[in-house]
């Protein structure tokens, strides 16, 4: 550093504060601080969310303890609350939605990325991404006015005729049920799977495909045995994104699930999910224990999400060694 009186002065002799200021003028440091602050903000918000859920469910936690997670009774009048029917409904509808949506979504993504002519692919991608932007209430209305009658008149009779002996398809079908909710959720999450998987598949380097063709593989063999495994991580990511949406979905589910806190082995029976019960009962819950029980349900949902994400990470770690990117 050049000082007019002293000439060249080594940096160590400048004061600490001035050294820091000099570094801050560098632009890099400022950029680092800003993005670090953004990341810190996100972490703070998440932490605050969990803390609030924890504090505001204290009455219910003290009253019910761990029994809350296995209790099957939800009675606001006698103030006996148990979360099991809602956990059951949430997990069953979300996983069933995945079972329906993943093959469809992945198939669509493969078609759009690998097999379709460019123009068709662009138009269809645009339409699929439009689907992702539709508000969930619209899906709920679509569910109850279009989907449920179709299920009632066409799909379920066929299902009962062929697979009716299975306990999961037993019992009367009233239209609103876990099955209908799962189908609506599947329709809602397909766009997420398609758009993210398509991006990931497109980003697979062409060298992989060319190498496979050079070895004599057919188009489909290349797609299924080379491209898709290479993009495996991203596809898993899209599936878990879709699952996260399905677990938290409220309005569309509450319109078609029947809102009955029962655990029934049949998928054709009505059920209830955590998000739906909170949306339905929170505004009218004046009693403190009732409100705390609903907030504890929110905490349980958070816990379910963490567990599923944890399992997802382990799954990805366990399968990431064979022939994938990185």
């Amino acid at each position, binding site marked *: 550093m050049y000082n007019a009186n002293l000439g060249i002065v080594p940096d160590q002799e400048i004061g600490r504060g001035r050294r820091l200021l000099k570094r801050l003028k560098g632009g890099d440091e400022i950029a680092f601080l800003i993005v670090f602050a953004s990341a810190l903000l996100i972490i703070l918000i998440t932490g605050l969310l969990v803390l609030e859920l924890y504090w505001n469910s204290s009455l219910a936690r003290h009253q019910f303890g761990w029994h809350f997670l296995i209790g099957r009774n939800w009675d606001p009048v006698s103030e006996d609350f148990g979360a099991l029917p809602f956990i059951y409904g949430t997990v069953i509808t979300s996983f069933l939605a995945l079972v329906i949506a993943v093959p469809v979504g992945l198939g669509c993504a493969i078609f759009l990325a690998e097999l379709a002519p460019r123009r068709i692919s662009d138009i269809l991608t645009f339409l699929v991404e439009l689907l992702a932007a539709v508000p969930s209430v619209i899906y709920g209305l679509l569910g109850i006015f279009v989907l449920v009658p179709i299920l009632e008149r066409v799909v379920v009779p066929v299902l009962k005729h062929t697979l009716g002996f299975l306990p999961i398809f037993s019992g009367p079908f009233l*239209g609103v049920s876990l099955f209908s909710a799962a189908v609506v959720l599947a329709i809602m999450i397909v766009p997420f799977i398609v758009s993210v998987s398509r991006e990931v598949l497109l980003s697979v380097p062409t060298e992989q495909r060319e190498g496979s063709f050079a070895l004599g593989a057919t188009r489909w063999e290349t797609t299924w045995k080379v491209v898709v495994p290479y993009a495996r991580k991203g596809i898993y990511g899209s599936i878990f994104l879709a699952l996260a949406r399905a677990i938290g979905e409220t309005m569309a589910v509450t319109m078609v699930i029947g809102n009955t806190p029962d655990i029934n082995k049949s998928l054709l029976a009505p059920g209830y999910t955590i998000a*739906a019960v909170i949306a339905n009962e929170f505004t009218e819950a004046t009693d403190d224990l009732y409100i705390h029980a609903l907030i504890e349900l929110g905490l349980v949902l958070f816990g379910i999400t963490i567990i599923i994400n944890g399992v997802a990470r382990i799954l990805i770690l366990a399968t990431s060694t064979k022939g994938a990117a990185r």
Partner: protein
Amino acid sequence: MSARRISSWCIGKLGCTVVMMILLLAFANQSSAQTTINGAGSTFAYPMYSKWFDEYHNVHPDLQFNYQSIGSGGGIRQIIAGTVDFGGTDGPMTQKQMDDFKAKQNCNILHFPSALGADVPTYNIPGVSQELNFTPDALAGIFLGKITKWNDPEIANANPGIQLPANDIVVVHRSDGSGTTYVWVDYLSKVSDEWKQKVGVATSVKWPVGVGGKGNEGVMGLVKQTDNSIGYVELIYTIQNHVPYGKVKNKAGKFVKADLAGVTAAAAGAAQNMPDDFRVSITNAPGDTTYPISSFTWLLIPDHIADPVKKAAIVDFLHWSLANGQDLLEPLSYARVPKEVIAKEQKAIGKIQ
């Protein structure tokens, strides 16, 4: 000037004008000395309050009433917390809630019935297009899950001449907490001891049977779409949507189809024994023409209001709503408060200090 300079100059001017207009509006609002009175609560009463506040504002342009329909429970919570000046509820506050209010706000809460509503049983039975008669035991039995088929003697005996199928009854109830539910289960508790023991009365209950729909629209949608179903909805929705609904047998033994006159009669019937704080359930009220599943909707007003301008506004509005406001109810399908109760209320308004 070149074209580019003109356009950027225009944008600059436009921007300045917009900013000035925003500032002007902001200041204009502040300087017009308008008093805003906030309330929240019952969704059932929202269309009515909305109309009232609109009309009242035309009479008193300096007073603005603001109402958020977040549900009766929300209204009660907010008035206890003191975030609103008044509340709206379809079910009266419990003693515990009133004590809570007193502890937090250091004054008492007053209930003022503003209008009446009713719940009706609506059904969808293929092949049956006539009006059905329901006895109290039939309704209680259906909703308890003890009467499971439409051709059960309890229903069939009340409907001679109507061929009821031997199909399973699908019960539809509300999934969200609501004053509508409160009125329905309150009536069932009065006519059925088993219901009172097993289920009880609240805005949300554990239903023995049935599926839940969200809101009156949800219940009606489910009933319309599901064969052999029965549900309960507000009278207003059935009037406005032309849905068939049944008659209910009242305490005097007559089958009454719900209409505005029958609902007002229910309140008149209960007026003789009305407590001074108006916290009364008027379900299953005596009287020949009364409709048994009726209820008040109340305004919740603290009995001590610090701000004199707000106090004067609220008191004046209450008087207006009981005198002129009642005439606006019928086009909206709400029932008027009977004159005996209005007289009592006019006197009770004096309790607001």
